[in-house]
């Protein structure tokens, strides 16, 4: 995996580093087990708790992040445990939240700000794009920006306008930013802990429709030699006939589609891209060289979406073996609709199955 620099700051720890004051494994877990069942909310909360304990320079802030514990409860209890100087509320001003993050990072802190909803990131675009993303470059490495910006992202919860945007292509287009999205509680825990140790700014896109689903979290996984740090993409289901490429909430949906396709004799591989910048082209190509067919699925609108980038990387690496052009199953080129139309906008099971069928039917000439 290229694109990740090792931490330059003496405060940034490698994911392997274990601090003695780090929280111990969950007392509810069976003896000898390192696996606990958590919702994504709880997994993210636990990761933040551990980051605060391990890194005295980490600070968390955003609208309602302190006393309330965040509208999605991701920072619940952290202010009471770690103090109001490390977990605190900000005014309702996203440009201020990100401007303060840049200043704190310049002063040696490791800010973990939250923008309460994806659509509220727009007022902070100047601070994100013009300052946070390029300060390291501008200062020739003298001022790294170890900022992890948490953004509850994507749709699926019947929220009003500005609460269901898919901004990954916007952020991925900005040099200097890393972009990542977890698909389940296990990924959320490890990716957030890892992102918070990076010397570069990371946009951490949390799929809000998956916050409440529970899953097993192996608390050790990122530290085992087999797993390594959670960089790059991850095969969530192995298959022979076609690769579904997805991230965030669409991974769970693609896994459902894979089960249904199996009833029809089609063996689907599901690749969770995880990192959307940089994209793990090696893993994409390895999967599709095997299956020779691919569909990329995302909630964001079609045009200039990340699906185009994925399709190009696959074409570049698999042109001689591809059975069909890469299909895209995505949201539509419209503003995100109101809740009643959400199920029509977000790629549903039938639209993804149609995408698979189009690829399977394709014949050259």
């Amino acid at each position, binding site marked *: 995996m290229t694109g990740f620099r090792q931490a330059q700051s003496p405060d940034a720890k490698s994911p392997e580093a274990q601090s003695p004051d780090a929280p111990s494994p969950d007392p509810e877990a069976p003896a000898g087990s390192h696996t606990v069942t958590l*919702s994504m*909310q709880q997994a993210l909360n636990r990761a933040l708790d551990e980051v605060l304990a391990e890194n005295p320079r980490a600070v968390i802030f955003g609208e*309602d992040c302190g006393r*309330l514990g*965040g*509208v*999605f*409860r991701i920072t*619940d209890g952290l202010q009471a445990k770690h103090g109001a100087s490390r977990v605190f509320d900000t005014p309702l001003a996203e440009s201020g939240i990100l401007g303060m993050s840049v200043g704190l990072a310049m002063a040696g802190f490791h800010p973990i700000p939250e923008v309460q*909803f994806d659509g509220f990131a727009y007022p902070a675009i100047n601070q994100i794009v013009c300052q946070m993303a390029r300060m390291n470059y501008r200062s020739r490495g003298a001022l790294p920006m170890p900022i992890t910006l948490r953004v509850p992202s994507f749709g*699926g*919860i*019947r*929220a*009003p306008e500005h*609460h269901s945007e898919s901004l990954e292509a916007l952020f991925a287009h900005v040099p200097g930013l890393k972009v990542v999205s977890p698909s389940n509680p296990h990924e959320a825990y490890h990716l957030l802990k890892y992102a918070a140790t990076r010397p570069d700014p990371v946009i951490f896109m949390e799929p*809000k*429709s998956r916050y*409440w*689903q529970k899953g097993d979290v192996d608390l050790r996984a990122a530290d085992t030699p087999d797993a390594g740090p959670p960089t790059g993409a991850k095969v969530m289901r192995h298959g022979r*006939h076609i690769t579904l490429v997805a991230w965030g909430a669409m991974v769970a949906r693609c896994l*459902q*589609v894979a*089960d*249904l*396709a199996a009833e*029809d*004799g*089609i063996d689907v591989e599901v690749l969770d891209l995880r990192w959307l910048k940089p994209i793990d082209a090696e893993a994409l190509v390895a999967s599709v060289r095997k299956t020779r067919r691919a569909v990329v699925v995302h909630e964001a609108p079609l045009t200039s979406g990340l699906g185009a980038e994925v399709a190009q990387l696959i074409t570049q690496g698999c042109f001689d073996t591809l059975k069909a052009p890469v299909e895209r199953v995505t949201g539509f080129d419209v503003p995100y609709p109101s*809740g009643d139309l959400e199920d029509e906008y977000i790629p549903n*099971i*039938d639209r993804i*199955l*149609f995408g*698979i*069928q189009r690829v*399977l*039917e394709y014949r050259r000439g």
Partner: protein
Amino acid sequence: MAEISFPLPDLGEGLIEATVLEWLVAPGDQVERNQPLVEVETTKSAVELPSPQAGKVVRIHGGPGDKINVGEPLIVFEVPDNTAGIVGTVPKEEAPKRRVRLSAVLDED
């Protein structure tokens, strides 16, 4: 569990208060979003106020004939901790439904 208080909303046109006519829910009731909560009368008209969210009613403020000012507490709900404050609705986990069937001849060249 967390408690969420819902104040009497601005009913429009510069109205500053309303009189409770009849409560349609009682403490202990589980209500759904948009379910009518209370009928109130203003100097303009009598209106039913829909619930802004789902939850269990903990307290109601004011009986029939009582005046409530805009912004004062009207009703208090109890909701699970992990949903308090969210904008939107927690999605339900449903069994996947399909209409599309796949049919393909896979040539193994």
